C-alpha cells in the first residue's frame, strides 16, 4: 500500500509539473542595446512564473524579421508568440484563423477600459474578437538633437524643425553632418511622415492617410511637404550609415546635429548614459505640432493544438499588459505604456513630453495602421529613391505619390 501511494504521489507530481511548465518561443526584432534591455524585462517576468521564455530574436529590423515570422506561421512551424506591429500586417493571418483568440483574457481583465488610447486595442480587434496584446506606444515624429554638435558649431540648440534647417549651415561649417539618416527605406518614409505632420499639418496628414484622398496628396500644401523633404535630403549628405541605431549613434557622439526618428531612439541615448535636456534634446512633432502618431508593437500568439501551450500563451498575454511589466518594459524601451493607469514618475523628460501629449489626446493614426503593407512598401520605395537621387524633382515625386495614394488600400 505504502509503495502504491508513493508511486501515485510521484506520478501525480510528474503530471502536475509537466502540465504547467512549458517553454514558449517568442520571436521579435528587438536587437539594439536599448531594445534588448527592454525585452529582457518581459523574459524576466515570464521566467518568474513556472514557464520558460525562449528568446527568438531576429536581427535586422522589422523588414527582415516580418517575412521570417510570417513564413514560419504560414509554413506550419509557428512560434508561440511573436512581435508584430499591430495594424494591418497580421490582418490576413488572423482572417485565415492562424492566431489565438484572446477575447476571454481581454474581457476578464477589462482591457477595453485600461488601454489608452483605445485605438490600439481596436487595431488588435477583428470582428469583435481580440487577437493581440498591445505592449507599447511608439511615435515616429521626433527630432533628436545633439547638444555636443551644436556646442561645436557655436549655435543654440534649435526649438523646432525650421530653426533646425536654418542652423544647418553653421553645423556644416563646423564639420558636423546636420541630419543623420539611415539608408533603409522605412527610415526615409518615417522622416517623410514626420515632416508631413510638421510642415503640412494634421488635417492634411489625416486626409491623406485616413481618407486616402488623392486630391489632398496633390494639393499645394503637399508640395510644401515635398519641398521641405527635398531640403532635408541635402542636409544628410555624408551620413552613410544603414541602421537607425548607427544614425542615432552619430547624434549621440556629436558627429551629426540631429536625426528624425521614433521615440525608440531614446533607448540608445539611455544605454549611452546621456541625459535628456543636458546631452540631447527631443522635439515631438519636430517641435512644430506637438502631436504624435501612435503606432506601436503588439504581440500575437499563433494558434497551438496543445492546451497547455494555449494556457501559457494566455498567461504571457496577461503578463505583458500587467502594470509592473508595462512600467519596467517601457522605461527601458523609451516607449509609452499602453495603459493610462500606471505610475511613470521614473520617466525622463522625453517620455514625460510624450505622456503629456498622450494625456491631452493629441494623437494621430500611424502609417502602418492606415496603409496596407503593399502601399507602405511603395511609399518606402518612393521616399528612399527621392532621398538619395537629387535629380528627382519635387513635382515628379509628388506626382508619383498621388498615384500611390489613388491606388492605396
Amino acid at each position, binding site marked *: 500500500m505504502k509503495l502504491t501511494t508513493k508511486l501515485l504521489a510521484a506520478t501525480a507530481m510528474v503530471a502536475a509539473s509537466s502540465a504547467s511548465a512549458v517553454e514558449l518561443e517568442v520571436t521579435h526584432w528587438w536587437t539594439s542595446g536599448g531594445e534588448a534591455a527592454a525585452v529582457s524585462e518581459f523574459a524576466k517576468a515570464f521566467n518568474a512564473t513556472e514557464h520558460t521564455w525562449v528568446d527568438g530574436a531576429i536581427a535586422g529590423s522589422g523588414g527582415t524579421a*516580418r517575412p521570417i515570422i*510570417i513564413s514560419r506561421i*504560414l509554413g506550419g512551424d509557428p512560434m508561440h508568440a511573436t512581435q508584430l506591429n499591430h495594424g494591418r500586417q497580421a490582418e490576413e493571418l488572423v482572417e485565415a484563423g492562424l492566431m489565438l483568440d484572446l477575447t476571454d483574457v481581454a474581457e476578464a481583465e477589462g482591457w477595453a477600459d485600461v488601454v489608452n488610447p483605445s485605438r490600439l486595442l481596436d487595431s488588435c480587434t477583428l470582428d469583435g474578437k481580440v487577437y493581440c496584446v498591445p505592449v507599447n506606444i511608439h511615435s515616429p515624429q521626433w527630432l533628436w538633437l545633439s547638444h555636443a554638435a551644436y556646442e561645436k558649431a557655436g549655435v543654440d540648440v534649435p526649438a523646432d524643425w525650421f530653426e533646425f534647417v536654418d542652423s544647418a549651415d553653421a553645423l556644416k561649417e563646423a564639420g558636423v553632418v546636420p541630419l543623420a539618416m539611415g539608408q533603409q527605406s522605412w527610415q526615409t518614409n518615417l522622416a517623410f511622415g514626420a515632416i508631413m505632420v510638421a510642415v503640412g499639418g494634421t488635417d492634411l496628414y489625416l486626409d491623406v492617410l485616413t481618407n486616402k484622398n488623392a486630391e489632398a496628396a496633390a494639393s499645394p500644401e503637399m508640395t510644401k511637404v515635398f519641398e521641405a523633404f527635398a531640403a532635408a535630403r541635402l542636409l544628410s549628405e555624408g551620413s552613410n550609415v544603414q541602421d537607425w541605431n548607427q544614425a542615432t549613434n552619430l547624434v549621440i557622439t556629436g558627429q551629426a546635429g540631429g536625426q528624425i526618428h521614433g521615440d525608440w531612439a531614446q533607448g540608445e541615448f539611455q544605454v549611452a548614459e546621456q541625459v535628456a535636456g543636458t546631452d540631447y534634446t527631443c522635439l515631438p512633432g519636430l517641435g512644430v505640432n506637438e502631436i504624435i502618431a501612435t503606432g506601436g508593437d503588439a504581440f500575437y500568439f499563433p494558434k497551438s493544438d496543445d492546451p497547455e501551450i494555449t494556457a501559457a500563451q494566455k498567461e504571457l498575454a496577461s503578463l505583458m499588459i500587467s502594470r509592473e511589466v508595462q512600467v519596467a518594459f517601457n522605461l527601458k524601451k523609451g516607449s509609452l505604456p499602453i495603459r493610462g493607469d500606471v505610475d511613470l514618475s521614473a520617466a525622463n523628460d522625453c517620455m514625460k513630453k510624450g505622456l503629456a501629449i498622450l494625456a491631452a489626446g493629441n494623437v494621430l493614426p500611424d502609417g502602418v495602421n492606415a496603409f496596407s503593407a*503593399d502601399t507602405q*512598401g*511603395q511609399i518606402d*520605395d518612393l521616399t528612399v529613391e527621392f532621398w*538619395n537621387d537629387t535629380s528627382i524633382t519635387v513635382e515628379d515625386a509628388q506626382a508619383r505619390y498621388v498615384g500611390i495614394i489613388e491606388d492605396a488600400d
Partner: protein
Amino acid sequence: MAVTDTGQTGAGAKKPSPLFKNLTAKIAAIPMIMTALVVFIGCTLWTIYHSFTKSRLLPAPDRWVGLENYERLWSENRWIVSIENLAIYGACSLILSLVIGFILAALLDRKIRFENTIRTIILYPFALSFVVTGLVWQWILNPQLGLQNVVRGWGWETFTFDPINNADIVIYGILIAGIWQGSGFVMVLLLAGMRGIDEDVWKASRVEGIPAWKTYIFIVIPMMRPVFVTALVIISAGIIKVYDLVVAQTSGGPGIASEVPAKYVIEKMFTSQNLGLGFAASTMMLLSVLVVLIPWAYLEFGGKKNG
C-alpha cells in the same frame, strides 16, 4: 530492403520492351523526375497562374485581375532600375569572368611553378558565400576604411574611389565583388578543359611555328566549346539569381540604385505582402531566361537533329 527490391525488379526485367530497358536506372531516376515535374514545372505553372490574381499575403486563386500586376510592375521605377542593373551586371559579369578566367587559366596552363598554390589562392574566394563576399567588399570599398583611405595614405590626397555610395556607379562596385568571387571558379573549369586538350595539338602547332596566343584563340578555344557552354550556363544562372551579394553589400542602396530583380521579388512577396506582384516579377524573370535559353537550345540541339 530497397536494394534487394530494385535488384529483383532489375533482374526480372529482361524483356525486349524498350520501356523496361535499364529499369534500375529508371527507378532510381523517378524521385528526380518527380521533383522536376512537381517542384519545377508544377510550381512554375502555379506561380504563373497566381501572377494574374490579386494575391496579397496569402494566395488567392479566385481573385482574378488579369494583367493588372504586370501593368503595375512595368510602371514601377524600382523594377525598371532592377532590370537595368541586372543587364549591366549580367553583361559585364559574363564577359569579364570568362575573359579573366580564361587568361588566368592560360597563364596557369604554361606549367609554371607553384601552380597548385596559386590555383588554390585564386579559387579561394569561391569558397566564400556571397554574404561574406559582400561584407568584405563593403569594407574594402568603404571610403573611410578601405581602398580610398589606403591610397590616400600613400600620398594621393585627392584619390576618390567610392562606388558604394555613388548611385551612378554602385552596380560596378557589386560587379567587382561578383567577379572576384566567381572568376576563380571559371578559371578552374577552363583549366580542366585545357588539360583535356591533346598534347599532340600543341606539338603540331609548335612544329608549324604558330605563336602560343594564336594557338589558344584559334585552336584551343574552339576545341573547348563544351567547357565554355558549361561555364556559361553556370555563370548565367548565378547572374539571374544574384540577391545575397546585393543585400550584404548595399541593401539595394543608395536609394534604389543597386536593386536587382530577385530582391524585388522577395521584398514584394514577403515585406510588402503582395504575392501577386512578386509572382508577376518572377514570371518576368523566367521569361527573360527563356528568351535567352530557347534560341540557344534550338541552335545547340535542334540544329544537330536536322544536320
